[in-house]
């Protein structure tokens, strides 16, 4: 059944933040976010936003401490402005949470990797708070549409897009609650005696991606090469290749793991196994194939 059959279609948004996954997310914390909203009775209303999210009607999503803003394009020419506020935890709560986190290396480990620690909710519960929004309105939602029902489908759509964003960048949830990943790491470090000014190795801001080969390699200007215009330079003589296959299959991908946006783990690995297997087999054949022989 076509949902849009009920009324006018919303206007198309160029480069809207269309949902990328069939299911919203396979990550438990995204589910947890949506579940938290569902649990206070929003389920049916949320569903109305799902198609908006799938269609890509949401754009300009911004996540700040305590505030989420986004634009949603509906049927009217003018897009709606959605704003959500979530209570930021006070310092003393964060202090307690971080103390709990510091008691097990696995919290730090996950934070360093940019992953959501599996037992994170306990850390907050033991400090007397809930990480995810609870019923009772500590999530305030507003939309510029005329719909009297809150949450409207626009708010719902933003929530789906937000949940997917959490799936890829889980630590944004902490940010929403008042502490960025870096701030948490700094505090954890402080407890180990690291002064926060010093930059820790694992917290370096992402640098410009370097080319695969590292630093710039200097070469002489062309005119200097006239005297040996046609020949490779000195270093070429010792340039050798060896045609021995890898000892370990898929080593690079095993090191990298699944790309974070990929929600079909089994498919990914079976595809890659086939790709690498076939490429290596064909490479072996191509390396030693003999066109003279095949010609005869």
């Amino acid at each position, binding site marked *: 059944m076509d949902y849009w059959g009920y009324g006018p279609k919303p206007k198309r948004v160029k480069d809207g933040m269309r949902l990328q996954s069939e299911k919203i997310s396979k990550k438990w914390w995204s589910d947890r976010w949506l579940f938290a909203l569902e649990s206070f009775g929003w389920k049916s209303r949320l569903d109305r936003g799902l198609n908006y999210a799938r269609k890509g009607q949401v754009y300009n999503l911004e996540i700040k401490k305590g505030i989420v803003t986004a634009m949603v394009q509906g049927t009217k020419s003018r897009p709606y402005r959605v704003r959500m506020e979530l209570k930021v935890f006070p310092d003393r709560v964060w202090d307690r949470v971080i103390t709990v986190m510091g008691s097990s290396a696995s919290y730090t480990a996950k934070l360093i990797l940019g992953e959501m620690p599996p037992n994170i909710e306990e850390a907050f519960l033991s400090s007397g708070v809930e990480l995810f929004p609870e019923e009772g309105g500590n999530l305030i939602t507003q939309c510029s549409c005329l719909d009297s029902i809150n949450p409207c489908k626009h708010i719902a759509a933003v929530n789906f897009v937000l949940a997917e964003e959490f799936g890829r960048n889980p630590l944004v949830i902490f940010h929403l609650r008042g502490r960025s990943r870096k701030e948490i790491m700094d505090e954890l470090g402080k407890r180990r005696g690291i002064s926060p000014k010093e930059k820790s190795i694992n917290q370096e801001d992402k640098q410009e*991606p370097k080319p695969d*080969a590292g630093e710039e390699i200097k070469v002489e200007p062309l005119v200097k090469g006239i005297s040996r215009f046609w020949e490779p*330079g000195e270093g070429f003589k010792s340039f050798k290749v060896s045609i021995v296959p890898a000892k370990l299959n898929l080593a690079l991908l095993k090191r990298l793991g699944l790309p974070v946006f990929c929600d079909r783990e089994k498919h990914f690995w079976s595809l890659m196994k086939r790709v690498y297997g076939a490429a290596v087999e064909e490479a072996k054949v191509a390396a030693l194939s003999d066109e003279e022989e095949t010609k005869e």
Partner: protein
Amino acid sequence: MIVLHGGWVSNGSNNGSFYLWAESSGKALKVKKPSAGAGVRPHPFTLSAADMKSVLQSLNFPGIFGIRSKQMEIKLPTLDNIPCASTGLISAEYHEDYGKPELSAWKVNCTKLPVFESFNWLLHYSERSDNANPEVLFSGDLLYWTRAAKFILELILRERFIPSVVERNSSICGVWKPVLSDEKDRERFKALVESMPPVSRSIEESSCGEEASVQNMVSGFLTVFLDSAVRNWIDRREYEYLENKCYYRDDVFSIWVESLCSDRLEIKASKHQERILIEHLTSWSEALNAPGREASWITCFKLEDPVDGEEMWTLSLHLQSADDRSLLIPLQWIWNNDEKTKGVVKEDIGRLQERIIGDIAKAARLFNPVERSLESEAPVSCALSMDEAYRFLKEGACLLEESGYNVVIPGWWLNRERKLGLSLKMKDYQNKQGEGEKSFFTMDSLIKFDWNIALGDENISREEFEKISQIKAPLVNFRGKWIEVNRNSIQTILKLINNAEKKGISLASALKMKFSGQEQDINIMECSFTGWLDNIISGEEQFESVDIPAGFKGTLRPYQEKGFSWMDYITAKKFGVCLADDMGLGKTIQFLTLIMHHKEKMNMKRPVLLLCPTSIVGNWKREIERFTPGINFMIHHGTKRLTGKEFVEAANKYDLVISTYSLGLRDKQVMAEVDWYGTVLDEAQGIKNPQARQTRAIREIAKGYRVALTGTPVENRLSELWSIMEFLNPGYLGTFSDFKRNIALPIERYNDETSLARLKRIIQPFILRRMKTDKSIIKDLPKKFEMKVYCNMSREQATLYKAVVDEMMNNVHDSEGIRRKGIILASLTKLKQICNHPALFLKDMSDEGERSEKLRRLAQMAEEILSGDNRMLIFTQFVEMGFILQRYLQSHFAREVLFLHGGLRRAARDSMINRFQEEADGPPVFILSTRAGGFGLNLTRANYIFHYDRWWNPAVENQATDRAYRIGQERNVVVYKFVCSGTLEERIDELLEYKKGLAENIIGSGESWLTNLSNEKLKEIFAIREI
């Protein structure tokens, strides 16, 4: 000759096309000095698009329909308004001035090749053997790209690539991207960037109009070629399956995969999706730029064997000092964080703790049991089951190490010797008659061995081995130590010991195991033979030297004596041998000594068959007459040769029958009827093509012992080597196609040193090669040695020669005085021209090598010489002959040949001499006219000198020789003087030898003495004498 160039032209970053262009020597020779014109002019000797197509076809280019041609402007070194020819191209000396060339643009016909097809084609280029079309030369810059392509192949084989995205123009494309994070790969990338030939950069710069980024060019080439290869090789069914299965086809993952696996490279994505792809794939692949481990402490994982009686293995965590690898600190110290720790570590412990936790977390992704250690506040170790420990050894350790961690694993795992292996000892062979040692083997003789299963240096009994082989676990504790038990090795061992005991193992496969040290996946610790077989195979000189036969007139140098004894020892055991001494070390006389010895001591009753190229039949005759006149020989050659029964009967009356390779095919039937005592091939390239009919015919004729004589380093031409070995010891190197795949192609295409080393070990028992340059072995060699090379005449030469002599004799009869003198001198010149080449006399300038035996012989010898690191001079007194030689040798070897003659300007001469002497890869052949180049020059880079024709004045010849044989010469110098057998050349040469010393003064003044001879004497000297 055509010189082929290749170039990469970028189109934005990570994109571009591969182009070929070529220079044609045919066109270059005809270039005339152009009038200076405005604008960019067409390159005067670039190959046309149509010609390029046929050249590519002749080189087996697989994608001929995908090529596209266009003109591109390329800046090339230019002089006098003409582009300079690349090194290697034969071009006329049209430059008037040898000034400094400058770069200027030319319109060049360029051909764009389809990527995947050119990748395959570049891979197949062999730096060691000839092209499919010997007229085409790969220039240095194209060679550069062939190696770059081979580097890509290596990256694919080693799985050093990942799926990713690149931005091209304004869109993004899925791409299989090379990963060069390994130290060695980074170095090679750097080498490629730094050594790119300027011409390749010039193409890029001319097309993009600014200074090219060489780095971008190389990474663009690598990325585009690798991507194309992987895309073409992957199994699309998997992708299609995925596509069908997916309900949701519009998400990032699906569009990315589609772009990676299909022909639709460009990703049709919204900005939102592009952002997700680029952002996440960038951070995803960043993990490969192994965290710059400048840290002084590195997280280290150490696998420890289970303590006695325990089941679990331990993976303990440590910090290892980067400066002192032996310094391992248990992690507990870091968590304790006390004074002791601070004293040793000298770093901010808090930060270190944090980093270690991060390391462990990352390591857990690579080897998940590590995750368990994180359950504690202060992780120090985790316990592993045996299967986990095995997985760690097989995979985890390697992944961790690659990611920049250190790994310590038990020594028994690393120690290759601690693996299961087998040693084999040949059982003393008793044949049924109880006559003791078997007198000979063939390569497929089955030999029984005593065997021992070994684990390192410990032997394992059969019972123990069976016990081990029944355990299903991958790791077994044996006598207190752990070993890996692999199902396949157990199967291999069982099969081998069964054969060794019962059926026997063929000599060929036993030798293969011995020389490679392994059989499938097990080690062959030892494979030894007994008695004389051991002597031969171990190559140790345990054979006694044989007395030199009385019938040998002359002296053998010690190394020649050894060569003769060696041949005798091995051929007596019915193995074939190849004597591969350098040219000029006397292979002929070593072999003649062997025949003489067989005749005197071995009661040889049947004839030996010798096959050689036509041009050296005369040489053999002369050497036999001089050194072993006691050998009765017959020459089977020419139109009057014996046929059928007559041949067989006649042959049986002689000791030696000399014939040619071509007759080996034509007279195969009669030759096969003789029961030869032995079969010998001189200049074994007569069987160089393993599949040729001639080669097969010769293998069928061969009987008795087999000897091959060759001066070419055999490992340079591998199919020829196989063919020689197949003649000598059939079956030894396996079938030709196996040999090609497993040994020849890896060596030829990829310079595979392991295969080359193994091949050398395998052939070593049956090949003896001494080199002139090897002064330590051949101490008794003179520094210069001269030799005459006797050549026959072709039929055309003989006919012409006879006609000129007849005409001269007619004319001299009726003339006197000056006129008579004139006739004689003119005829002398004509005859010398005919001996050199009919074209020189007829001025018909079709100079194919078939017409002159001298030229053929020269080309053969030059081929051998140029296969080593040698350079040669060729002197001739006829300028026209110089041009014939230059043209012929250039097209024959597809290499530039220099020619210095009186018509050249000083600057041109100096540049040639300079290039010959100084250039690292300069032209190795230098022709000089005796008049213009016979004195004054210093050409010590040459170590071979040819006098193509004779001056009849030893002083002039010596002076020419001394161009190379002089101060500054570091190698021995070999001088060859060419003589046409049966002609006046030989006659005058004899006279010179006879009157040596005395005659020098008389004859030395020139050729006029000839004019004073009587008519009878003249006829004696001039007329053809039958060989």
